[in-house]
């Protein structure tokens, strides 16, 4: 039973991991969003699995929230924004795909290296996911650094958030419910506000390329 649980959870974790790499690899915007949606879905399912195997009720709610907000609302909002500001659908990257993939791989190894002392002494069934989750966080961060469009930066942040969520589930079956809800709310508001500013950037500079945001410097 636990075995099965472990397999399922690890499997889903791997899915999340892979989707992250796909996002790194893709060069067009819409697939990003859909990949992100899939990743979030996997995350939700993983949460559900955890909830089922540890039969703790509040994680079901968390899972539901995850699926609704992360794999439905946010992707829709992002698509809507992209349509509104009519960005060209290219992802402008500072580091090309192969290099990005290699670096991401390196980051993954790094995160194993870092979390190793925790994993050896952890005692929750999902502990192996911790490394993956940290890897996802780092790679999300990497995406924010190397992709120039405002939208892609938001996406990167979202990927990081997914990594966090995974970490929360992995290490401690999620945070207290109230906190989780608060966090989801924050993320949602955050994305909305960033979208608003993306609009403003587009209005002021006729582009969402954050590379040109260099008026303020010393």
């Amino acid at each position, binding site marked *: 039973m636990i075995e099965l649980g472990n397999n399922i959870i690890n499997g889903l974790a791997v899915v999340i991991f892979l989707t992250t790499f796909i996002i790194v690899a893709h060069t067009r915007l819409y697939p990003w969003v859909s990949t992100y949606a899939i990743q979030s879905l996997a995350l939700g399912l993983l949460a559900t699995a955890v909830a089922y195997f540890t039969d703790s009720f509040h994680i079901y709610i968390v899972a539901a929230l995850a699926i609704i907000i992360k794999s439905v609302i946010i992707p829709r909002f992002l698509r809507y924004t992209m349509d509104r500001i009519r960005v060209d659908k290219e992802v402008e990257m500072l580091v090309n795909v192969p290099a990005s993939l290699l670096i991401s791989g390196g980051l993954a190894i790094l995160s194993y290296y870092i979390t190793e002392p925790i994993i050896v002494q952890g005692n929750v069934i999902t502990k192996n996911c911790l490394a993956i989750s940290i890897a996802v*966080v780092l790679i999300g961060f990497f995406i924010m650094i190397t992709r120039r469009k405002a939208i892609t930066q938001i996406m990167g942040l979202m990927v990081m958030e997914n990594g966090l969520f995974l970490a929360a589930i992995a290490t*401690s079956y999620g945070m*207290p419910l109230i*906190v989780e809800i608060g*966090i989801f709310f*924050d993320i949602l508001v955050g994305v909305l506000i960033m979208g608003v500013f993306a609009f*403003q950037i587009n209005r002021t500079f006729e582009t969402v390329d954050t590379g040109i945001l260099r*008026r303020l410097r010393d």
Partner: protein
Amino acid sequence: MIIEALLAIPMIAAILVYLIKHRRAIELISTMGMAMVLAACAYLAWHVFSRGPVTGSFWYLDGLGAYVLLIIAFIGTAATIYSIGYLGREYEHHEIDLGRIRYYYLFFHVFIFTMLLVCVSSNLGIMWIAIEATTLASAFLVGFYNKDTSVEAAWKYIIICSVGITLALLGTILIYASSVNSLGESPDALSWPTLTEHAKNLDPTLLRIAFILVIIGYGTKVGFAPMHTWLPDAHSEAPTPISGLLSGVLLNVAMYGILRYHIILTDAIGPGYSGSLLILFGLLSLAAAAVFILLQKDYKRLLAYSSIEHMGIIAIGFGIGGPFGIFGALLHILNHAITKSLMFFGAGNILLKFKTKSINDVKGIATLMPLTAAFFMGGGLAITGSPPFGIFISELLILIAGFAEGNYPISIIYLLFLVIIFAGFMYHISRMAFGEPPADATKEEPNYIGLSVMAVLLMVALALGLYIPHMLSGILANIVKIFGGS
């Protein structure tokens, strides 16, 4: 109960100022609101300092929290009153319309609310939410003028801080994990009192990793170098009263976030580890500030960098620790809040007058606006740590701590940077204050309401330099005990 009330006031004020469409009324309400917040905070603080921490289902307020709370309320009130004069002037010169004013005060109060929430929340998770919320609320105020630069600043602000905050959340999660491992799953597994209580049982490895994430995460918001990059942009682009609020208060709130973890680690594994990280980032910040203050061309950015410097000083103070270090750092939080907002208010008057933020274009303030010049110079001397102003005492205490704890090299580097920064700062502000004023400029003070506020702030800064009331030192001494590392 009182805490709920305290949190309710700014929200109500926010809603009211947004609904009402009359400038005077808006100003009145927001002033009233802040006054009430101040009163409530004063009451809470009295309660805490006389009867010990206030606790609630989600709330926990001890001396440290109450102290920061008071600073928020005090500077917040000052900022509202200053805003009346400042926005009033811009309104009369038709630079902004009533809509913008409503928008301004709406987010002003929401911003205040979020900061209050940070201090009173007992749960680290909720504290994280609140800190993220401060970013979201203030982002709008940073982008207030909708100019290209302000939008850029706002974007950098929100993105960089969100990333940082995200890392902080990861840290929080790890802490939670360790507490769950030891305490088992429970809603208050993240509540601060519980964590400090059981700090000894927490898993050190997790704590250490967590603290790295937290100090980088919240440190981004505090403005530690090298995560400080957003700060000068945001603080210089925001409307000046908000700059004062961001520099004087928000940074301290974020610092408060770090301190909570610092205390947990102190209790768990002693002050050494987190302390040395604090010192590291403190010195980095001092260095960065020194570099950019030396060749600064924009006086609001100048002040922003000086905030980075002072956050560094505070971090060093807490990092060095010991009675003097922590006492000095706590005192420095207060001094810096007062002085920095004073400086920004002065900069606001200058900006209203000269319509430029470039240091080279500002000359002869002493001739055109004697009072502003006096307060600005006074503030400048105070902020660079000259006696007889408060900051001198707190900086000196931190230096003494360095010697008392035997951290000689750190203390000397610290002093060196202070001197360099003094030189750079004086160079800029003396060029601004003196010299032959532009021919066309008229001799007139733009903002008298603001001046009264500045006068009060300068008086307080001066008083704290000459005499520290026993009440205050008693309070600080109590707070120092919280850092005890029992």
